[in-house]
């Protein structure tokens, strides 16, 4: 799957208030994009490889964001029929935040899905594969996929055959260590963040290799 866009912000957790993006797309962002296109409880997407096609470029912008969230307790009491207001007034609650974001990104995502416990008797891998394939080819999605922030929409296209070459192929010995990067959130274990050592070879981050290399708790 080829995805591209003008802006992207894969916020680093350590710099998440005044946002600073990772150098490249995180696996969880890639998963998010695939899930926007096709997802069912019966399947779970696993990212295999991320190809970084464009050079990594940064830009800084400022955006108006809000300072607070609607408290979950308010939502709960509203569900029970309580009289609470469920809104945020961005005019009262504005905060300007600076972001260091990526410009002109283009990636190729290689992924597969695995069947989960939720799979019923009708859920065959072939069925889901074909649905996903059809949706990707047609450019259909449940909600529009985005690069890290809703403001940065993703253009996507299904790549049949050869994956385009990367800008980084053969540069600097072809290898680039990107440090520890968020792999995903472990939703089963207290939503613990999991990090992995991202290593880019010829513009390709091979997750299986990186994960095997260690660093995941």
């Amino acid at each position, binding site marked *: 799957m080829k995805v591209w866009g003008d802006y992207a912000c894969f916020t680093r957790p350590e710099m998440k208030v005044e946002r600073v993006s990772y150098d490249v797309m995180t696996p969880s962002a890639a998963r998010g994009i695939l899930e926007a296109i096709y997802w069912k409880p019966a399947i779970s997407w696993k990212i295999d490889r991320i190809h970084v096609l464009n050079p990594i470029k940064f830009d*800084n912008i400022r955006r108006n964001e809000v300072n607070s*969230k609607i408290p979950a307790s308010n939502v709960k009491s509203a569900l029970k029929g309580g009289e609470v207001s469920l809104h945020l007034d961005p005019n009262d609650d504005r905060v300007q*935040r600076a972001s260091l974001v990526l410009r002109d990104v283009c990636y190729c995502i290689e992924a597969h899905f695995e069947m989960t416990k939720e799979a019923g008797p009708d859920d065959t891998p072939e069925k889901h594969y074909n649905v996903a394939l059809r949706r990707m080819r047609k450019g259909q999605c449940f909600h529009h996929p985005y690069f890290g922030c809703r403001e940065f929409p993703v253009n996507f296209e299904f790549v049949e055959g050869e994956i385009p070459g990367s800008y980084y192929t053969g540069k600097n010995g072809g290898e680039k260590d990107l440090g520890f990067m968020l792999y995903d959130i472990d939703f089963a274990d207290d939503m*613990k963040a*999991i990090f992995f*050592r991202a290593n880019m070879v010829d513009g390709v981050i091979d997750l299986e290799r990186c994960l095997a290399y260690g660093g*995941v708790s």
Partner: protein
Amino acid sequence: MIIQSLCRYYDILKDDPAVEISEYGSSNAKVSFVFVLSPEGELNNIVALGSDDARLRFQLMDVPMQESRSGKNPPPYFLCDNAKYVLGVEWLKKADFQKKYPSAANGENPSGCTVLEENEKGTLLVHGPSEDRFQAFKGLHHEILDGTNIPAVASLLTFLDAWNPETALDHPKIQDYKDDIFTGGNVIFECEGAYLHKIPAIRALWESHYARESAKDEQISQCLVTGNAEPVARLHQKIKGVTGAQSSGASLVSFNADAFESYGKGQSYNSPVGTLSMFKYTTTLNHMLASERNRIRIGDSTVVYWAETSNSSCEDLAGFFFNPPKGKENENGITEGEDDSRIRDAKTIRQMGDILNKVRRGRHLNRDDLGTDADTKFFILGLAPNNARLAVRFWYVDIFGEFIEKIARHYLDMEIIRDDFGSPFVTPYQLLKETSPKSADRKEASPILGGLLMRSILNGTGYPVQMYSAILSRVKVERSINYARAGFIKAYLLRQSRSGSSPLKEELISVKLNEENPDVPYRLGRLFAVLEKVQSETNKNMGSTITSKYFSSASTTPAVVYPVLLKLAQHHIAKSDWGFKTTQSIEEILSGVDAFPEYLTLEEQGMFMLGYYHQRKANYSKKNEKAVEEE
């Protein structure tokens, strides 16, 4: 990336005996006073630290870790704290005092506090909060130090136990220093010639206490710096010394509102950084921000840079490139940078010249040019404050040789004919100042420009168009162009044409006047300079000149203005002694111009300015007289 590199640099600095940097469990603090205790626990003497210079009444010292304090009951620090904690006495400004104790405004003695002294500025008092703090301070020291038999400890504890905040001013020594001691400066203790916090046995006690405390309420999680599962810091130390941020420091990593938190996590658990890594990166950053050598200011950002080596020559050379030494006194309307005290280092200037020459000829820089390994990793981090937080403006990593090459390329592109006086290099800081009005109260460039400019310099890409148009409009409004502005216009156009995004040819954008240049806007710019000259020759004292009336429109809509200007010029030429020569040069300049364009694009306006600047420079240098710059 950023935090990781800072942590690595901490390890380098720590192994370097020439650098003083805090060890784990301690931090730097501004210490103003030493309390000298007798073995019997009496306060014998008070020594004020720091120089007599009114601004610097403290000394930076390595003291037991002082974590950032906030909230209603902030914890005391160990062996180094301010008078509120050490003595239990608080100084409140008059307004604050009256806000707290409204009854005091009526001249009554408010209940709940003891006023020690009162003057028109404020009140010195002992009250609930200050007493609580003193008790907490005493408690902490008892907790850590009880059960040891170090003589100095006994003396400190005796002093604390015997101390009564309400009689603070009865002490003659405190009376002497009362104006300074209560305003927040930190106090340390000395007994028998040694600072208490430096005594190894006490340090060991503190370290074990600190390790115990920090392990107590920590969560174990995977640290995003080291990748290992370790205790995670809940709050990060504050970063001090970023221009414009709060003086108590601002946080690089912080989560001070609901909207910043996700997945039900509080505070910095949102970003698991191990306590040790947290300590390393904050300490390194504070260390660099405190030192002159690793820090510069560009626009509103404070920039630190470092090379991943203990060899400091990289940083020195980089410092020279960021903030080149100045030549003679600068009269060209360029605002001086703030660092005027920089000593000129002839050797480094020569080295810079050599490097520029090499880059001009397209050669690679080697070890001899740089005085250090060209493959050393080099980092630049631009920070800017945003409320209580710090935002990263830009972040750059490259090998050192590459970095120097990029920045040298920038200076080469900026190169332009100029007067004999003035600095040969315009620092980015000065360049940014050129975008703001000279008359403005706050001579700050737009906050976004600093980052953009630095990024284009460091990546060797085109300059930001925002910056270009800002400079153009300054030239138009102020009707004056100096070599910093002309240099930037030239550099911008040069990079535009090099990248192919502008139809201009690279060789047409020259350092000095090129009479062969057929570019129409360039010629019109030259023509304007000639017309201006003939006018000023004819009439010496004029209120309004063609420059003040027509410069802006000539550079944007020539077709409207030039016929008028040429007609006017005829009158001047008729009166001028050099009329014939002027007519000749007008003819020569206009020989390639078939028609006056209706309007000029931004790029063409730049060419116009460049032509005007070049011609002016040529006009005056030919006659070999000092250019009378600006109106």
